[in-house]
């Protein structure tokens, strides 16, 4: 049996666990409610008189900062706590297949959660004529963003048995990745650091790379940024699992 097949089986199981769990639905509803409230109320979608989902997308790095760790914190921590990790890793699969499978299972669940915000696309299309190209790239950016967050969550979850610790650790790493490019923070840093240094640091921020998707642009560099963060986090996840077995 080939490698992809085994990853698919793990992914299906992990995804199935979300679909079958009441807590996952609570997260899903909370996420959709919050994204709706933010877009329509805080973001003043109607008062803006502008047919676009820009407001919705600009809040996504902050919203997913809570929801990605909430969805993914159980991935390895729960396996460690309940002892199922012993069952999983003595199956005829490699650790990396388990890691990718689990990551993809949670990513698909989060992608579906994001896609369930589709009534907003219908709303803006009914009220005006938005740039649907920008909406598509915006969603693409959201998928990459959620995948990157989740890969970091996978890593955090593989370092502890405790889901709450995994949540806090993942949340903190992701928050730092946002803040290093968040203008109120970079403005403060500007008091001590050279503008070039700040620009260099801000280049590593999630915001810098998510922005262009929001504005309807697709840049290969942004893809490389998100995918390298994902691969790097999952690579460290693999090391953490191997280390636990040594």
């Amino acid at each position, binding site marked *: 049996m080939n490698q992809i097949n*085994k990853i698919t089986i793990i992914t299906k199981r992990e995804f199935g666990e979300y679909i079958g769990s009441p807590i996952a639905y609570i997260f899903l509803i909370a996420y959709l409610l919050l994204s709706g409230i933010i877009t329509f109320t805080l973001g003043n979608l109607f008062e803006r008189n502008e047919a676009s989902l820009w407001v919705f997308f600009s809040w996504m790095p902050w919203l997913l900062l809570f929801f990605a760790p909430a969805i993914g914190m159980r991935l390895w921590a729960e396996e460690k706590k309940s002892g199922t990790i*012993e069952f999983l890793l*003595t199956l005829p699969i490699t650790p990396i297949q388990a890691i990718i499978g689990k990551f993809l299972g949670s990513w698909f669940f989060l992608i579906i959660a994001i896609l369930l915000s589709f009534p907003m696309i219908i709303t803006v299309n009914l009220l005006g004529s938005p740039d649907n190209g920008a909406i598509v790239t915006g969603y693409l950016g959201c998928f990459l963003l959620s995948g990157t967050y989740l890969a970091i969550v996978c890593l955090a979850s593989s370092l502890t048995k405790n889901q709450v610790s995994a949540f806090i650790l993942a949340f903190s790493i992701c928050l730092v990745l946002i803040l290093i490019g968040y203008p109120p923070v970079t403005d403060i840093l500007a008091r001590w650091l050279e503008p070039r240094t700040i620009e260099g640091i801000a280049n590593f921020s999630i915001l810098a790379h998510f922005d262009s998707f929001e504005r309807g642009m697709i840049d290969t560099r942004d893809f490389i940024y998100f995918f390298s963060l994902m691969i790097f986090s999952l690579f460290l996840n693999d090391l953490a699992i191997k280390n636990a077995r040594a």
Partner: protein
Amino acid sequence: MIKVENLYKSFLDIPVLKDLSFEVAQGEVLGFLGPNGAGKSTTMRIITGFLQADSGKVLVCDHDIAKNPVEAKKMLGYLPESAASYHVMRVDTFLDFTAAIRGLTKQEKKRSIERVVDLCNLGSVIYKPIEHLSKGFRQRVGLAQALIHDPGVLILDEATDGLDPNQKHEVRSLINRIAQTKAIIFSTHILEEMENICTRAIVIHQGQIVANGTPASFRQETPTGRLDDFFLSITKQKNHQNRLLQT
């Protein structure tokens, strides 16, 4: 079918296994005995590839678990201590998942699930989530999972732990039924159990093998002919030797 050579393992510089070597042939049920913390579970975890040994070699059906883990793991079924399984899954979906990852085709899956459900008496709970099952049933789900691909090597870590006398009897007779074609390692605290199931036993104490023989030969070594006397004398003797060495 199982060959363990000069196994060493330590956790945080505390040695847990010290030069452990033994073999298990087809048709043998090897009992693993020893006080808590003797290194029984660690040995089983190394044989199944969950943990890596510091040095030494484990061959499962001639596949080296360290060099060729996937091939070696295909050959074995493993029931971890306390029979860990995904509690939110239903028994049938859990077995289906295990069968799929073991590479069984759709038809093989159906047949082998029927076989293990029958073998482990799981018919009445097949559509229930594992979290709703009693400890006895969970233990049998763990056994079913380990047997799904009809492996040549079976590693059972305290398979009868927490079961009532009837369930223990069932598990014992199940092992006796399937034992002829397999090599089985069975760890237990219960000495009578070892006598009922095992063709041979090793006693592990402080990471070393302190006795290796048939239950009958163990009985002959004490004047009372009782297994617990043998167990007590051999583990105490070792403690005494260690104390002497230290002084």
